[in-house]
């Protein structure tokens, strides 16, 4: 959790503005929860628990900082905790071995240049979905949601160095995936 902030508890209006702004992000959080939990029932539980915690600990939010990042952190931490407790779905990729292989993975000698305008949204989405979860989350939070390394580190509960190596490895895996999809003729060249 975040350090003690001044929170929106300064006044009724501040509290209302905080609630409004938080509730306005509900569809974003629900979409993320679906991606993390993989099914509607767990996603709904996840979002609801996130709001219960957010409103209960509202005074810990620093006004003026990124509310979306704060809510995403609660959502991700709650998701990680729920997984740890039930131990039925251990994090897909989390071992030291994987982090090391991520660092040591060689680049291709002659990578095919990826031409941006050739990539369709649908292929990008499919290539992202095909990434191992740990890498996909890191890349998603960085390049799609545009959070800082530090924000992502607190969401995923890993050191900043690990966040960077996951982003780096995830991007290169994505690059390979996109090149392969194009080689397989699934992309229409413009």
């Amino acid at each position, binding site marked *: 959790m975040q350090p003690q902030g001044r929170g929106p508890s300064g006044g009724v209006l501040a509290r209302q503005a905080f609630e409004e702004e938080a509730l306005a992000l509900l569809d974003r959080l629900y979409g993320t929860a679906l991606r993390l939990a993989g099914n509607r029932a767990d996603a709904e539980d996840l979002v609801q628990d996130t709001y219960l915690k957010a409103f209960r600990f509202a005074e810990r939010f620093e006004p003026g900082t990124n509310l979306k990042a704060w809510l995403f952190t609660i959502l991700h931490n709650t998701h990680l905790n729920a997984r740890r407790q039930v131990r039925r779905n251990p994090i897909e990729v989390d071992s030291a071995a994987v982090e090391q292989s991520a660092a040591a993975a060689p680049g*291709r000698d002659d990578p095919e240049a990826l031409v941006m305008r050739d990539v369709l949204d649908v292929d990008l989405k499919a290539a992202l979905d095909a990434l191992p979860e740990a890498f996909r989350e890191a890349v998603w939070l960085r390049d799609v949601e*545009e959070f800082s390394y530090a924000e992502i580190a607190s969401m995923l509960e890993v050191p900043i160095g690990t966040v960077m190596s996951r982003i780096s490895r995830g991007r290169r895996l994505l690059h390979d995936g996109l090149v392969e999809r194009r080689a397989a003729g699934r992309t229409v060249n413009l």
Partner: protein
Amino acid sequence: MVRCEDVDRLMTPFVDGEIADADRAAVEAHLERCTPCRMRSTMEAAARQVLRSGAASLREAATVQAPLDLKARCAAAARTGSREAARSGIRQRRGMMSWRLAAAAAVVLAVGGVVGLVLSRTSTTVMAAQLTVDHLKCSKLFPPNSPSDDVRVVEQRVGEQCGWPVRVAGSHPAIGLKLLGARRCLFGDGHVAHVMYLQGNEPVSLFVIPGRQSDPRALSVFGHRARVWSRDGRTYVLVGRQDEARLGQVAQYAQSMTH
């Protein structure tokens, strides 16, 4: 001399343009003479560029309309949260409620919410959120049980149902407003009167809540607009998807007719 392992650690901030100047020079010098590292940085930069240019549509695809009852439960969580924050000593020891228990409690709060609203000092935002859900439920599921556009008939019936006199504003063709009828709000357990209208093809609800005082406010909740005002010991909440101007017409008219 910078080694490949060192460059590897700096690759992402380098590609993101968030690297310290001193480190940048070292990385650039290394990339000049190390083909594998240069390839890796090219690949990472290309993937980053594709992602960034696709980010808006990826975000859009990842924004999923949450079910209405989930929205209601989350809005109810705002109330639970404020109340719990008030008795801060207890929550630290007790820890989080169990999942299912919390979910069940929130459903009860959401469904029974309006009763609590009347009695407690809930935030106007949360009240508007819950009434917006009621507006959607009622206008979709429950047509007025005594459909009539005769103001006196509607006032008499809803007054009998609620047990207190309810002033109802009738149809007003000049602003395209048609009175559909009124009912005692199911979720208010008789504490809230729900007057239903159509403005053009768009449903509008006016909720009348006795014994609550709210400052006038205009809010935006779940894709709807809400206008809240109080007068003579009653609070009125007008809810619809109309634009500001059209809903404003209804608000102005309702204010003039119910006082």
